[in-house]
């Protein structure tokens, strides 16, 4: 059956497909398991805290006690845990806010805050990715010339400096000294307007520096590796010009690892823009999480949901990076044995 080469190829392709599928299923299952364990851990640790409200003038303790009884806070921990699993993790009902937005549904508040976070990250990626690719390609093509040295040195500096330092610089010079942009994001519901975009520019710049620098470094490294490989030499010897080989062969091949990195970066940034959102007053998920922790007493329902969210974001971005490698480049096989 396997004597014909075509059959052989089809067989190995099928085999590879099942391998990838198996790997994907394994990783996704592991991800769900990890999330469940982390959420359970958070739940139990939070419930172990003494969260009885203190007796205070003007507080009707009887009413508070009735409310706690009605919400099931007085049941045994194990029973509460199973109710939590059933209602929140499976049913998607994460309860109501206790301190921040008293009585409002946690999930709908979370969904209300999501667009702002997504918007900032989306704008940042749209601006940062082309810039990063451009600088990286330029540096790789000018390898070991002064342009490359300049870009590489700047990259080291820009990749190291924390994003909040950029935020201070941007706020001080662009917002305060030059008065080009407002200090904080424009309040209002009209997220897609030009005015909102302008008010988001400081946040985009502060977030973008690190991403542009990281992408430049990565693109340069990948492209220089491809540019020195043998098949490119072959392409040159068969008569293609330098620009033809670069565009048709080198760039395409170097995109293999760069693309998943961009994707993973996009998801990772959702979890990483916490500080920037806080500094520029963006009504996103980050400030919600921080204020749920710093509120007294902490808003545990928000904390549970957002902890699960951030855990999931981190895991998904990791999986996407790993998986995309396998999907895009047939030479890399995830989970393969030696």
């Amino acid at each position, binding site marked *: 059956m396997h004597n014909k080469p075509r059959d052989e190829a089809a067989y190995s392709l099928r085999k590879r497909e099942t391998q990838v599928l198996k790997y994907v299923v394994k990783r996704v299952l592991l991800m769900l398991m990890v999330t469940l364990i982390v959420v359970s851990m958070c739940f139990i640790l939070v419930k172990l805290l003494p969260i009885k409200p203190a007796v205070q003038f003007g507080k009707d303790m009887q009413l508070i006690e009735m409310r706690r009884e009605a919400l099931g806070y007085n049941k045994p921990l194990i029973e509460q845990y199973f109710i939590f699993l059933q209602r929140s993790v499976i049913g998607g009902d994460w309860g109501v806010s206790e301190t921040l937005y008293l009585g409002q549904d946690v999930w709908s508040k979370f969904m209300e805050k999501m667009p702002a976070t997504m918007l900032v990250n989306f704008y940042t990626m749209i601006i940062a990715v082309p810039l990063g690719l451009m600088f990286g390609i330029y540096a790789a093509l000018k390898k070991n010339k002064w342009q490359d040295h300049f870009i590489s040195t700047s990259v080291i500096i820009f990749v190291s400096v924390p994003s909040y330092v950029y935020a201070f610089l941007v706020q001080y010079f662009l917002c305060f000294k030059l008065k080009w942009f407002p200090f904080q994001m424009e309040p209002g519901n009209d997220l897609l307007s030009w005015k909102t975009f302008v008010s988001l520019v400081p946040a985009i710049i502060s977030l973008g520096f690190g991403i542009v620098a990281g992408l430049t470094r990565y693109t340069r490294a990948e492209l220089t590796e491809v540019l020195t490989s043998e098949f490119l030499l072959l392409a040159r010897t068969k008569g293609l010009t330098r620009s033809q080989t670069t565009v048709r062969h080198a760039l395409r091949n170097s995109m293999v690892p760069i693309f998943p990195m961009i994707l993973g970066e996009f998801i990772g940034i959702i979890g990483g823009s*916490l500080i920037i959102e*806080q500094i520029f007053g963006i009504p996103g998920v980050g400030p919600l999480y921080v204020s749920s922790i710093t509120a007294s007493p902490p808003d545990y329902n928000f904390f549970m949901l957002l902890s699960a969210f951030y855990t999931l974001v981190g895991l998904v971005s990791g999986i996407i990076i790993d998986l995309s490698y396998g999907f895009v480049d047939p030479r890399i096989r995830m989970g393969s044995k030696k």
Partner: protein
Amino acid sequence: MSENKFYQNIPKEKFVFVDDADRLHDKKLETKPVSYFRDVLQRFSRNRASVVASIIILILFLYAIFGPIIGRNNYTTSLTDTMYLNYGKLPPKNKYLAFLGMDGTSKVTLNDPDFQILRGIYEETGMNPVLEVYRAAYTDSTASKTSRFYDIKVDNYYRMGMIYLTFTPAQYADLQAWQDKTGIQVIYPAITDAKQVNANIWYKANPKGIPQLDKDGNFVPIYRTTTPTDTSYTSLRIPQDNDPEKPMAYARVTGTSTTRSYVARVSKYQYFNYRYGFEPSFPFGTTDRGQDIFTRLAAGARFSFMLAILVSSINLFIGAIYGAIEGYYGGAIDLTMERISDILAGIPFIVATTLFQLHMAKHVGVAGALFFAFILTGWIGMAARVRMQFYRFKRQEYVLAARTLGASDSRLMFKHIFPNSMGTIITGSILVIPGVIFSESSMTYLGIINLESSTMTSVGTMLANGKNFLSTYPFIIFFPSLFISLLMISFNLFGNGLRDAFNPSLRGVED
């Protein structure tokens, strides 16, 4: 064939060396052997950027160690003294660094009453806060037409002017004795208008603080006078105080005859000199609460470094053992342990920090809880590196040889395989340090942990406290930002250089 078996009967003389004439010798090496670490050091020192980076790290490190010791005489170390609260938001000033603009001056726009106060300070104390007037007495079309404005360069240290302080008789006497000894005027005459809140207005002024000048444009003093019998003040007197019949009063006396206290107008600048033994001059300025940024930042850096080094070494310890067991035994043990570390790696750092804060901060303190949060997941990267190295080396012939000779598992693991991963381990644990400092500063910046107290601070705390004064007093946030940026850049360069130096495959590839 059979006689061959009697080889013990071959006489000894029949044996000869095969190559007696030219016996084979190992050629003695002409060059000195280069040990692995010497080679690493050589290749590292060839990388100029990394060497510069390591020098910067060394300087920052020395600053963190010796900064608080140099600043020991500084008043910020005093915990019970709340006087420093009066010296907040002073800009950087140092006589050796004045050429960098660290001369304690700033450019401001003042309205007329505020400008007159500065003039009054100059006239009374002889310390001129106004260094340069760029634009005098102009009207601003956006403001009221009657108010005039001044664009000036002001010395913020002299600008502090006067302050009302309450002394006990002993303190009052001590201050007078110091004045006599040094000849520096600290206490200035009291004024007649006891309702005047601003201690700087020693001249006739309306309730809004606008001075009522005499016909020559001079201030009209409203100093309080007393009788010659009053002996509570015997020290230096200002030049105008020359009438022996009507001497000026240098303090407002309050309280009863048994618990008497003196409310005196003192020069803030000279009072600092009296209290702390040196003229106020802060190379990095002071925070909003009056703490010296130079000392405070060094103390914060020291805390951050200490935390980072402690975390790094504990992570190294746990990670090395965990990774070694995983990598060496493999199979089911590896699988189980990998799953455990997968789960731990899935916990976002911010979640771990919060939970540790909520649960442990009461028992082990905020810093302790933060430390445990770092330990919880920090070792995973190290374990993964060690595990990888073990997989690479455990099937090598020399390990098999050692096993055949009867070496125990732990000996094989830590004597034979582990040294191979030294390079990656050292690089990894050094790069943990900036990571810890960065995470700590992010968490404190977000306000999830609060390390601020009179004895303790961290770089992130200083950033978080300074952000409110970003536009008004940018130096408060500038120095911590500069510190953390320099630290990150140099650690990254240093780490890159170290990684290349430890990579034997790059040997001889450079230059």
